[in-house]
């Protein structure tokens, strides 16, 4: 019975992926991408990787989807048009077939190479499960009980540290593209009474659930990134409800919030080196506490970065719209 579900899921995912790439209209692509993200999250659940599933659903389907929808807005016609006109506008320009031969050859070769590497990788997985045994043996020393969290924040803390950095780099890219000064425009969108009530109700719930995910990361699926997306959602909701939270606090505080996750991680690493250990080798007695602090600060930083990415892109569009109101 469950193998049927798996096969169905696999077929649906491949179908959605192909459709997402080949569909002629951009808006269809975006919504197929939503569906694909949710399908991927389900697939991760079926594979037993709940951590990845939560992150996939939250970041890929949720946050990226929001960004895509937002980007779609700037492709949308500025004047309202009828339904049948819309189809022409969203259609991507068709190139002639000849210019597509080389890209197609490259695509096929690339796919073949990818397939080869994937098969090779599947072949190479050792029967003993790789490093599972040694990771589980060291679990009591890691300060947490959930193996995924132990690997992410203790054994391979380096990776996680760089991941936080990558998100910050993304934000820097947005800053460079749009300029930091765009930030000062509070109350740009008009608040809707109903939206405001819902945001008022949802914000504390989201905050609590994010904190729960953060704390449960110690013993089960959850952790900094999952919590960060929920907290980032609070920021985006507040921004949409006409309360851009980072335009209200002083600039230095905003920058402190953005960098404290990465910064604390780095300072801790150097302190550990000064103590005669290697980078991110926590003393086992304090490991649990240190991981909790890192995760909390990291989650706040990531949430702030996600919010800021969204808010800046959103504001950038508003500014371009003002320059050229109708086309």
């Amino acid at each position, binding site marked *: 019975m469950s193998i049927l579900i798996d096969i169905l899921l696999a077929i649906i995912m491949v179908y959605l992926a192909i459709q997402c790439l080949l569909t002629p209209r951009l808006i269809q692509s975006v919504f197929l991408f939503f569906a694909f993200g949710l399908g991927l999250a389900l697939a991760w659940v079926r594979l037993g990787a709940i951590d990845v599933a939560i992150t996939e659903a939250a970041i890929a389907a949720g946050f990226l989807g929001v960004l895509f929808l937002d980007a779609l807005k700037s492709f949308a016609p500025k004047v*309202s048009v009828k339904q049948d006109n819309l189809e022409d506008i969203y259609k991507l320009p068709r190139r002639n077939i000849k210019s597509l031969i080389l890209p197609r050859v490259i695509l096929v070769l690339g796919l073949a190479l990818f397939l080869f590497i994937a098969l090779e990788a599947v072949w190479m997985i050792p029967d003993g499960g790789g490093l599972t045994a040694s990771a589980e043996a060291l679990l009591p020393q890691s300060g947490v009980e959930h193996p995924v969290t132990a690997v992410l924040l203790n054994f391979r803390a380096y990776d996680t540290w760089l991941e936080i950095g990558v998100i910050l780099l993304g934000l820097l890219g947005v800053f460079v593209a749009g300029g930091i000064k765009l930030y000062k425009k509070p109350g740009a969108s008009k608040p*809707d009474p*109903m*939206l405001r009530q*819902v945001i008022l*109700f*949802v914000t504390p*719930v989201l905050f609590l659930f994010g904190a729960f995910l953060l704390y449960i990361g110690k013993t089960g699926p959850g952790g900094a990134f999952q919590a960060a997306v929920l907290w980032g959602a609070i920021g985006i909701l507040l921004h949409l409800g006409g309360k851009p939270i980072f335009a209200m606090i002083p600039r230095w505080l905003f920058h402190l919030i953005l960098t404290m996750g990465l910064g604390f991680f780095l300072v801790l690493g150097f302190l550990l080196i000064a103590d005669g250990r290697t980078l991110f080798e926590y003393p086992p007695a304090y490991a649990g506490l240190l991981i909790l602090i890192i995760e909390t600060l990291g989650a706040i930083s990531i949430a702030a970065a996600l919010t800021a990415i969204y808010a800046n892109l959103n504001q950038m569009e508003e500014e371009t719209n003002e320059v050229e109101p109708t086309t």
Partner: protein
Amino acid sequence: MMIKEIITVILIVVGCFFFLAGTLGVLRFPDLFSRLHALTKADNLGLGFIAAGMAVYIASPWAALKILSIWVFTLLASSTSCYLIARFQKEQEQPENRKEQE
């Protein structure tokens, strides 16, 4: 044991029926408002039935409470977004409405 499973199957089938009806509505209805109507009303009901079916199947009060909260939050989110989309569309179509409100 048997009765529980039968109730679960019935509830989930009813839920799927509502989802199907909602999807059919989205595909077949002529304009945005009726499509929104079909999507949010029918799908919320369908999700409610499926959630009830799952709650009966799992048969633990704590899990039932969690499932109920999933349904309540989906209800809240979908009805709010339905309202926002409809309001946006309304303003797009009749810009004079906006001035009356302000």
